[in-house]
Structure formats: C-alpha cells, structure tokens
C-alpha cells in the first residue's frame, strides 16, 4: 500500500516535536544550567556568560537527540593556549561528573552523558569551550576560537583556528525569510541522520539546507521541498562552500572529507530513487518516533495487539537462509 509522503513527513515532524518530551527537555535544561553555574563558579571572571547553542536555540531540534550545547566563552588571557583551555575544562568536568556521567573528549566539545536516571532517561550535554580572539573583543563581535581535539573532516587534530560567532549562527536560521520551511527540512534531515547514523554534523545539514533554499526555488508541499533539498545536496555537495555565518573564512564544507561528500551525495541519490520507486520506503529513511505515534494510528491498535506508544516495536518478520 502506497504511503502518503506528505502526511508521513508531517507525522514524522509531529512525533519528533521537542514539546512531546517536555519533561526530558526540562531535565536537559536543568543540567545545562547546573553545568553553567559550576563553570562560572570555577572560572569566575575568566569566563563570559555561558550560553545555549545547538539546535534547541535554533528551533531545529528533534526529541530523539536534544543537541543541548553549552558554549563557554573564555577571556583571551584566561589560558595561554586553546589546548590548555580545552584540557582545563575537560579536567574540571571530568572531576566533577565522573561518578554520574561518562565524560568524553569530542571533536570541539566535551560530551557529558549522564547515567540513566530513575525514569530511564539519559541526559546529554555538550560543552564547547571557546576563547575570544583578542582581549575584550568578545562583547563586540562574539567571535571565539575553538580547539580541535580530533581530526574533523579536512580539519586537522590540534588545529585551533575554527573561529565562530556562534550567536551569528543562531541568527542565521532564525532570520531566514523562509525560516519555517527551512526548519522543517533541517529537522527532517536530522531525523534521517539520527536513525541512519549518518556522518554529517547537524550544522553542516543546516547550512546546506539554507544554501539550497537560497540557490533554488523551493516550493510545493513538504515532500517537494525535502526532495528539492536532497537533490541540491546530491548535485552540489562536492563543490559547495558553506561559509560559517559566524566567520565567513571558516568553511563548514571542510568538516567532511571528499570521500564523505561522495557518500552523502550517493546517500541522497539512492534515497530519492528508493522513495520515488516505492513510497513505503520513506518510513525506513524518515521513521516516526514510535513513542509518539500519530493520533489516527494510535487509535487503531496494530495487528500484533502491541500499543507502540509504550515503546515496543512490531515483532521482526521471519527471514530465511
């Protein structure tokens, strides 16, 4: 039976709405606040006010992965080098949270994954330490230097030149003329990325989506728009440049290698082919969050008598070999 692609995509967006997981979101926000206060207490006047970044700030979040980032902007003289800044923040967070979270060094951030709580929830917060470029300049331009802990696409490990006005990044989505459509497509691509463990950073998907809207006339229903963006990625990802709105000399396209870009282009090509050929396959690429099924499906219990709303999936089918 054919799937109505537009209806399905709307359901995907609805089931992944952040508001559906308000309690879990609140836990994230609380934890982020706690970390922010701990950093301010530890670093005092070396630190400007930490602020929220990530998709929640950009209204492009989805409830399977909150992307709760906390930017910690340090003063120029707080640390001799960016590496020392990064290590200091890691050491502090590790010491403070080692008994209640896994603290991991990531590409430009320190990831905290808190142990499962009594409700079975896991809270994750990424802390991104950054340092102003020159003394007292941050309040004027919001530019920060980040430390690159591990190889990141074409950007080398140990490199310290990712300069980024993160506030400008946030404004980039918020201020877009077609911000609602842009946000919808970004959320859908993030659903795809999440369920299929794809490599591109969310920020990359955001920028290339905005670029597609800027370069192409994208209209029609939601599937038309998603398809147009996927076609843009398929055709242009290998050559497109994606200047960081926070710093135009910083090309976010470099966060993927050429081979990663080939793979992404091929991902889009295959995905469009499969969905056009058989609309049902859209469900495998863009699944509904089974925890929050659309109301019409929730009413009709499925053939296994399992209410998917409680998190159980339909039993696997028999395969042969």
């Amino acid at each position: 039976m054919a799937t109505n692609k537009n209806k399905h995509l709307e359901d995907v967006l609805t089931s992944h709405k952040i508001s559906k997981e308000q309690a879990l979101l609140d836990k994230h926000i609380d934890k982020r606040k706690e970390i922010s206060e701990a950093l301010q207490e530890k670093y005092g006047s070396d630190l400007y006010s930490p602020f929220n970044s990530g998709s929640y700030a950009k209204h492009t979040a989805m409830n399977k992965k909150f992307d709760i980032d906390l930017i910690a902007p340090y003063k120029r003289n707080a640390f001799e080098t960016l590496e020392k800044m990064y290590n200091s923040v890691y050491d502090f967070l590790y010491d403070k949270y080692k008994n209640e979270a896994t603290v991991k060094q990531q590409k430009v951030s320190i990831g905290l994954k808190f142990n499962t709580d009594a409700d079975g929830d896991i809270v994750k917060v990424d802390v991104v330490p950054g340092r102003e470029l020159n003394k007292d300049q941050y309040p004027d331009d919001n530019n920060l230097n980040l430390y690159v802990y591990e190889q990141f696409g074409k950007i080398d490990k140990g490199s310290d030149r990712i300069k980024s006005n993160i506030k400008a990044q946030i404004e980039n989505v918020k201020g877009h003329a077609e911000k609602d459509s842009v946000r919808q497509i970004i959320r859908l691509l993030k659903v795809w990325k999440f369920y299929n463990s794809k490599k591109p950073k969310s920020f990359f998907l955001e920028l290339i989506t905005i670029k597609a809207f800027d370069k192409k006339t994208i209209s029609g229903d939601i599937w038309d728009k998603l398809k147009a963006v996927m076609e843009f990625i398929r055709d242009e990802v290998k050559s497109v440049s994606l200047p960081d709105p926070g710093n135009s000399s910083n090309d976010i396209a470099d966060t993927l290698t050429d081979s990663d870009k080939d793979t992404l282009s091929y991902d889009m090509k295959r995905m469009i082919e499969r969905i056009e050929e058989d609309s049902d396959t859209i469900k495998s690429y863009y699944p509904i969050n089974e925890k929050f099924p659309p109301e019409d499906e929730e009413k009709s219990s499925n053939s296994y008598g399992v209410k998917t709303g409680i998190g159980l999936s339909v039993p696997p089918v028999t395969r042969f070999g």
Partner: protein
Amino acid sequence: MNKLETVAEVVGTIDGVAITSAFVEDGEVIVGSVIVKVDEASLDFLVRILPAYPQQFHDSESIRFVNSDLLKYSHVNADGSICVHTHHSPVLKEKLLFDFASLKEWIRKYYINGAKDSHYEHIIVPQDDRAVFLFTTVDYNFTKGDFGSITYSKLAIGFGKDQRIETLIVQQFKLGKSTFDCKWSSVYKNLDKRDGLFVFIENAPTVNGRFAISSWAELEPYVSQEFLKFLNFISRSRVSESVIPLLIGYKIPGEEVHWQCVLIPSRNFPNYAEKIPGTTNYIGRLADEPMQWVSTRNCSYEYFFGRGSFTSELTNSKILVIGLGAIGSNVATTLVRGGCRNIGLVDYDIKEPENVCRAEYLFSTGVNSKINELSDHLSRISPFVEVSLSDRFMDLAKVTLNDQAWRITLFQKLEEYDIIFDCSTDNDVAFILDQLDRPSKIFTISITNNAKELICAVPPKLYKWMNDIARSLSVSDDDLYNPNGCWNPTFKASYNDIVVLVQFALKHIATSIKTHSSLRSFYLATSTEDGFNIKLKEF
C-alpha cells in the same frame, strides 16, 4: 572425390607449396611430404593428417607438419611438429588452405624473423603423468648450488588417459639444519610425509634451449661435486621406497622458481666415483643413463588462483561466516574458490539429507555437523585456506551478552574479523552484531520465501533497517514447505533460485569493497515478468 584425392589436389594448388612425396594412406592417417617456400626460405615437412581432420582433436589441430631440424625454434614440439593453431572450418578444402597459410606464417615469424614470444614457455620435458608433483612457494630464496632433502606427501590417486595418476605434494625443503615449509594450509601440512631430494641449478637443464636433458650425464655440468658427494651418501643409505624423487629447480623470468622432478631408482643411483688419473683422488660423475622425468605443477597461490579471484581486500581479510545453511555455505564456498585464506565458521546445527539439495553439502557424508563438513569441503577446494570452527560461539554470545566482562571478550573476538557474513537469519545475532563498536564490515544476508528477494543489511542500524525492509517485502508465509513429520517449516527455493541471488550479492559486495565505496544496505528484487531478472535496490 575422397579425402585422400582432395588433400592431394588442394595441397598441389597452394602457392609456394610443392608435393615432394605423394600423399598416401597409412592406415587411417594420410601421409605425404612437401616443400614450402616463403620469401628466401625453403623448408621440407612431413605432413601427417589424422583421422579427425578437419576437426580439431583434444584442442590440437589434427594435421602435423614435422621437421625435426627445427627444434630450436619457438612453437616446435618435441617430435619436430610445428605448433599451429588456425581458423576453424568444417570444410576439408578450406581447412587445408587455412592450415598451410598458418604454417607459412610460422615460417615467416619464427624461422625467418626469429621472433621470441614475450610470455615464458616452459621447457619441454618428456615426462609421464603417472606421478605429478605439486609445489608451492616457501620463504627462502634458492641460490645456485643449494641442495638437500625434501619431504612430500601423497595427495590422491586418480585415473586419466588410460593410466593411474598419483598426485603428490612437496612439503618441505631441508638445507643443512634449516627446514622451509611449503605454504600449504595446515590440513595438508599434516599429511604423512616421505623423503626425497632437491638440487637448485639456477638455469633450466636443456638441450636446444627448450628441451629437457634426457641423460643423467647431461646433468653433470649443472651440479657441484658437493651435491654428487651428497648423492653418493644417500645412495649408501637404506632407502625403503623403490624410487626417490629428485626435484631440480631453476629460475624462470620474474624471479620465479620452477621445479622439475626426476625419479632415481633406489637400487640404481646414477652417480659413480671415477679416479682422477695420476692421483689418488676421485671425482663424482653421473652415468649416461636415461632420466625418468615425471610431471610437476606450480601450484602456488598465485597460480592456483591465477585465472581469477576476488579482490585482495577480500582475500587478505579474516572472514567469519555465521550460519551455514543454503546462503552461508554458498558464501563460504564462493569466498574460498575466490582465494580467501582465513575463514571462521559458526553454526550449531547438524546437516540432514534434506539440506543437500540447496546447500554446499554432500549426501555421501550422511548426517554430520555443518561446521565439520563445510570445513572439510573448503579445505578440499583450496590448499591455502585455514578454517576455524565453532558450534557454540553465538550460543555463548547470547547467554553472556549482558555480562560486562564476557561482553567485552565476545566483542573483541568478533572484532578480530575484518569481515563478517551473518547468514544465520537469527535476529539475535543481527542485534548483537549491530552493537559492535569497531565495526568490521558486516553483511547480514537472508532471503524471502521462494527466493523472491535477497536482503543484505550493513551497519549502522543494521538490525532496524533489515527488519523494516523485511517487513515491507514480506509475503505470506502460508506457502512454506512443511512436509509431514518435519519439525520446522522452511522456505521454498531451489539451489539455483538461491545461489543466483547469493552470487549477485557477493559480486556487488566485492565490487564495493574493491572500489572503496561506502557499504550500503541493499536488497535484490527478482521478477519473471519480462524473463528472469534481478534488480539491485541499494539504500
């Protein structure tokens, strides 16, 4: 006009060819002599036309042009016949014209212009195939003058060309105190061994450049006095076998070592000592007695798989195959025939007679463990594959999955493999493999009823994708095969139905690995609407 008359008439009309001795029937063979002129060259040939002519016989032309004065030229057989391969024609007259044209071409190319082919031609040895020695590479660079003993094993007794053929494999070369093992798999290394000898002489022992020497005396210039002393020592030892093989090694182009084999009668060694006149010293000599050559074959990995193999990214990988039913057994067999050398097999199950019709098992071995039978089968195919077995591995995995210490050990064990083919159709296995941190290349392969589709899932999200797709493709299970008394229904499909899909899938996987393309989940959809066809649906 009969065949003889036609031959006489046609040959007489060919430009540059004159009959010097009329064609006559000698039994079933037509025989005559000709002189053939090409430019300034003029050569005599005895022409023998065999009964099958103008048809070919055993891949050879059934006409012979013989002149034993031409032995030193390329493409001349030991009996002096020119080796010609010409156009096919079932028409006698036309075939004669083709063959004489081909003879003239040989004269122009090899006799007048002295052309040498770029590919190496082995020396021609008057060997018989009663015994065939297979050799492979060892980790040692032989140099001129090396000699010592070898061990060899009987591999099999066969029959062909109206005679018994014994195949033997060379196992080890012993030089002084060092022993160098031939690179067979352990199954073959463990065969019972017998003793023989070897000498490495650097250049092929030939007369006329291409023909092996035929007398022991002709070998004398190639070997050292030390070797003859060694031979003398051996000849005085007690030897239980009636003949002792002597491998004679030499280099051929490409720094490759080739071995020929001659049998020494243990009661009649060819060596003797001769007093040096005017001294009390003796010199070792070899008698002017015929050498009894037997066949050898270079059976090294490169030759064994020379006609075709998988890409080296696959053949050099350590590969695990889980689940040895119709799909898994065919995957494993295909990998080994494709040159893969390190295979692990996992299955708890027993092969029953009804498995044989669509899996790589034999009726003759009866009820048997799948891992044991398939391992044996794989080793029979390739002398280079090491196979490891486990019937409990995935059972253990399931039981210990939630024990942290065991889980680490289990995952480390799985991650030792570069590639895992999961053909178990066991969702628990797919679920476990999906959790590997340092993913090997994993392919979970299964088919739908009637082999309508083959599904191949890869990480990440292997488990979820596979079940999503299987569900979307799922056809009714009402049509399963469920014979009376059978404990479990199974799918319907023949060997042909299944293997055509498995081979297609393996070709696609091997191509992706070879081209370093990203590995993607896919399924193969079959259709018979417009003739049978298979479509690749990659995700």
